[in-house]
């Protein structure tokens, strides 16, 4: 029925089409346009380029990682002198018996467990603070905070390494000047922060806090702005202190935002690579690897073991995907997909 109407060249959707359609043979372009419209192909054609690019450069490589993780992909396979062979779960069992893997996994988990709450707490406190300031001060402080967020990761990492440098770094100098009851003293002179895991990850904690809190603060502030002032006033009249006010009023209202921020922070901090790579000084110190750097070192130090690295990468991806599922569900519940 609909088809027969549209089959007549004179009845295109727009008046312009009607006048142009008078010529008997439709130009190829016109016919194509007609085809697209009749089959309702427009959205698919519009989505096609992005879907193709993402499929080729993100989805397919993910599948490849899964495939490589079951193969003995190494240097001979890379240069093509030998074909890759299936080794079943060989790569996985090799990893699970590698103490360095467990060390790296432990470092990643502990690091995320420390940095995520710290960033969330500091970010939320700054967000609450911004909400209480005058409008000009709020604008000023949030612009300054966003500068930290906008600082390139490589610059921020290099600067933090310089701040904690044993020769001439300002942190060691400051710690030697600190009174002993605050933990200061001469033993801090020339203290090297990057030679072992604990001090290195202390620097990394400060670094990720520094880059991470502005985003949380600005997001929390945006959430706070959506809460009507009457609700806070009513709670204050009822005699609620700031602690109760936060946990009984603010937090329940902003819970969806906090959930999203929590999941995003876990994904970012568990999967952190660049900052760790720079602060621990490349791939030299094996006992300072986190999971991402461990995986990278398997693939890109001689001799390359792409199969084993892919197995680690696949484990990392699966862990992050599990958290991402939570993130997607929280986003959908927030009404992100309309």
């Amino acid at each position: 029925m609909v088809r027969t109407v549209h089959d007549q060249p004179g009845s295109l959707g727009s008046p312009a089409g009607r006048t142009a359609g008078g010529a008997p043979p439709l130009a190829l372009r016109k016919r194509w346009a007609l085809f697209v419209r009749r089959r309702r192909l427009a959205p698919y054609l519009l989505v096609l380029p992005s879907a193709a690019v993402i499929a080729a450069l993100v989805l397919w490589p993910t599948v490849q990682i899964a495939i490589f993780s079951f193969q003995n992909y190494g240097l001979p396979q890379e240069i093509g002198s030998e074909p890759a062979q299936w080794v079943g779960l060989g790569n996985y069992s090799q990893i699970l018996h590698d103490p360095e893997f467990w060390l790296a996994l432990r470092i990643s988990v502990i690091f995320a467990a420390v940095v995520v709450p710290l960033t969330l707490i500091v970010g939320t406190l700054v967000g609450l603070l911004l909400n209480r300031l005058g409008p000009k001060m709020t604008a000023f402080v949030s612009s300054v905070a966003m500068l930290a967020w906008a600082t390139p990761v490589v610059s921020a990492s290099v600067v933090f390494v310089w701040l904690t440098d044993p020769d001439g770094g300002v942190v060691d100098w400051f710690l030697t000047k600190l009174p002993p009851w605050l933990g200061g003293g001469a033993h801090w002179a020339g203290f090297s922060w990057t030679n072992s895991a604990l001090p290195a990850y202390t620097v990394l904690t400060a670094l990720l806090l520094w880059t991470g809190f502005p985003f949380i603060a600005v997001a929390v502030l945006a959430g706070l702005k959506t809460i009507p002032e009457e609700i806070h006033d009513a709670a204050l009249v009822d005699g609620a202190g700031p602690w109760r006010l936060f946990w009984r009023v603010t937090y329940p209202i902003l819970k969806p935002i906090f959930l999203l921020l929590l999941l995003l922070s876990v994904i970012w901090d568990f999967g952190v690579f660049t900052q760790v790579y720079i602060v621990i000084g490349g791939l030299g110190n094996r006992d300072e690897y986190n999971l991402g750097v461990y995986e990278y070192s398997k693939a890109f130090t001689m001799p390359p073991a792409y199969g084993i690295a892919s197995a680690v990468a696949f484990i990392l991806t699966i862990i992050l995907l599990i958290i991402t599922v939570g993130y997607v569900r929280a986003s959908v519940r927030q009404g992100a997909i309309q």
Partner: protein
Amino acid sequence: MTTTRLKAGAVRPAARRRRFAWSRRTRRIGLNLLALLVVLFTLFPIFYMVSTAFKPATEIYSLTPHLVPAHPTLGNFRRVLNGSVIGYPYWIFLRNSLIVTLAAVAASSLIALLAAVAVARFRFRFRTTYLIMLLIVQMLPQQALVISLYLDFRSLNLLDSLVGLIVVYTAFALPVTIWMLRNFVAAVPREIEEAAAIDGAGPMRTFWRILLPLVAPGLVATSVFAFIFAYNEFIFALTFLGVDAAKFTLPIYVQYFYGRNGADWGAIMAASTLFTIPVMAFFLLLQRRLTTGLVAGAVKG
């Protein structure tokens, strides 16, 4: 009766108000001091980077660090700009970074705009699937994908070339760009497009003449995110660009520089200052619009 009560009531609130005003004043000062502390914590690393870049070597390695250089010098910048430390001047790396970043931003903005129109204007079969796919793709760890992309690009002969990086950055900037742009497209009233169609404009004309100018501010905001991502990207550049230092982008240059000249902090800080300042200037210029976009993204998911 009523008058006495009014009087009694009038005195007490006034006293309370005064006390309240006093405590409010101290609280406001306290809050502003806290805010100042936040500002200092945030600015100190940036300030110290710039300050070190202007210090002569004797001051950099002195036992008591100075906040401000006592004898500021441009020597560090000179060494970075003329390339005496690494063999290539800074401009080469800036050029590489700009080529890669601008090409990736242009390509991803164009492709994303098409997708955003589809998602914001049409209901189609795999729409929800597509949107969820974008959310998931955003979260895939790049240090995992770099393995297979390295091997693929190796066989395609795209390593050690800026084209390879452009392609990868375009793909990885797409999800966020589409996700943010669709809100801007959805904000353009459909009636305007319908009016244009009634006036005889075809879909192409409607797109170029009506939709594009109206979405342009949104396009600027989202492209800044793509810009920051591509300008800062580290893992792919580190892995793909290995052999030829003349192909390095700025992040790799700063890192390589730091790895090689572990002791020359003056030059390293000068290099990272030159790397950082353009982003910050760019960011401050567009800050208000950006924060709105960022927040919209955060609050809406």
